[in-house]
């Protein structure tokens, strides 16, 4: 089990969360808190970089949905970038690939 680390920073488009390590029921709350702590307003984009994400179970999925609910309530947008293949398959199986905006890279200039 790799410990979860979440690094917050800001980009011109909005807040950036870089999530690394394993996301499960023991630490999913951390991701929710990090998103709740991000300053969001209408028109901004929260970018969550999952490039270094390891294992992600249903609690992790729940946390991502909670993050999305928080972002949508603020009138902002959410983008998941560099989503690992296993999570991508899980999101596809659960139909969540239609809910989340998935991008391959986090070249922020693109936004």
């Amino acid at each position, binding site marked *: 089990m790799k410990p979860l680390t979440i690094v917050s920073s800001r980009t011109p488009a909005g807040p950036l969360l870089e999530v690394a390590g394993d996301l499960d*029921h023991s630490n999913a709350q951390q991701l*929710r808190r990090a998103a709740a702590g991000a300053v969001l307003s209408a028109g901004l984009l929260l970018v969550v970089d999952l490039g270094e994400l390891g294992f992600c179970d*249903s*609690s992790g*999925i*729940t946390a991502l*949905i*909670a993050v999305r*609910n*928080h972002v949508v*309530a603020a009138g902002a947008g959410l983008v998941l970038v560099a989503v690992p293949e296993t999570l991508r398959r899980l999101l*596809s*199986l*659960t*139909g*969540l690939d*239609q*809910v989340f905006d998935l991008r391959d890279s986090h070249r922020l200039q693109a936004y």
Partner: protein
Amino acid sequence: MSPGAADDPGVETPGTRPAFSSLLEDSAEDLYESAPCGYLSTLMDGTIAKINATLLGWLGLSREEVVGRKRFSDLLTVGGRLYHETHFAPLLRMQGHLGGVALEMRTAAGPRLPVLVTSTLKRGSDGEPLLIRTTVFDATDRRVYEQELLRARRAADEAREQAEADRAQLREALAVLQRSLLPAALPDLPGVETAGYYHTASPMELGGDFYDLFPVDDTRTAFFLGDVCGKGPQAAALTSLTRYTLRAAMIQDADPVDDLSVLNRALMERYTGDDPRFCTAVAGVFERAGDTLRVRLASGGHPPALVLRSGGTAEYLRTRGGMLVGVLPTAQFTEVSTVLRPGDTLLLYTDGLTEARVGPGRRLYGYEALLAFAAARAPVGSRALVDALTGLLRDFGDGLDDDTALLAIGVPATP
């Protein structure tokens, strides 16, 4: 030789300075008489030859009553006397020494005095036993301490029994709740063979898987199987809401896509914002047409159903696009249909099966392995398929750490 003379207390160590000696003890005689423990010497028949004042004081007896008149065992309670005669005296004679034996003495005033007794056999120069020297320690404090220990131990035993009883009661309550989330038995339907199975990962945790199958009218039967996210009482509450919402929706209008939409709305209303809760589910309806079953089913983010054909093949029924139930108000669900002919079997399962860990590398069991397992057994009836999968789950051992539900629906092969 008189017993008293034979058992004289020792003389002062030569060379001990008198001033120092008198500071410590007035005399050896006084040390003997007023020692903080009881002393007595008895002849080999038990007759008391010498006894110190401390012990006489404890017993409330005078020297005249005791010396030459009583035997050591006369000073003991009935139980103590019995023990003395049967164990203490014979062992002492054999070993020459016996220490720390707990006995009870009778006092003149009535109360028993718990004591610890140590005896040594004194032998003459020819090796013949001459007399027995005995020290007696007041063990009242120690007895109180032992009783405290016993009481504490009894209290601990009772607490443990209570905890075990509480645990058993909780387990029973959980089992009743768990059963309420599943059908007691699947209905008997003419020309259809059904089988269900539920594997509980932990008896102390309510699982989050569910399934059901029930007739909605004379020709149609509804069924569903799913998995709520999470475990424990909150997951069970969600499971309960899910099961009864779906059941009511399907009895009202057996349309798989509409029914999942009803469930989606119910979950969205109940769980919102920061505490999203959702489930994956497959809901379906089948209807007899001749000797076949026409099956329509819809999936909400659930692993694809598997069909085992009479020809010995197996395939997944792809339901792509069906979304997790309870996440988005506008969730879309997709319907697929298939026809089950004699010898065909449809299998619904939860991801406890495909996400079990197998082998030394603890890799995921996965969809391909399940497909191969099914194909190797096709054609197979519902009961036999569920039995085979139950065996597979058992073989997973501790690689299976999630609840798993299985539901199979098939048309028996025509002979």
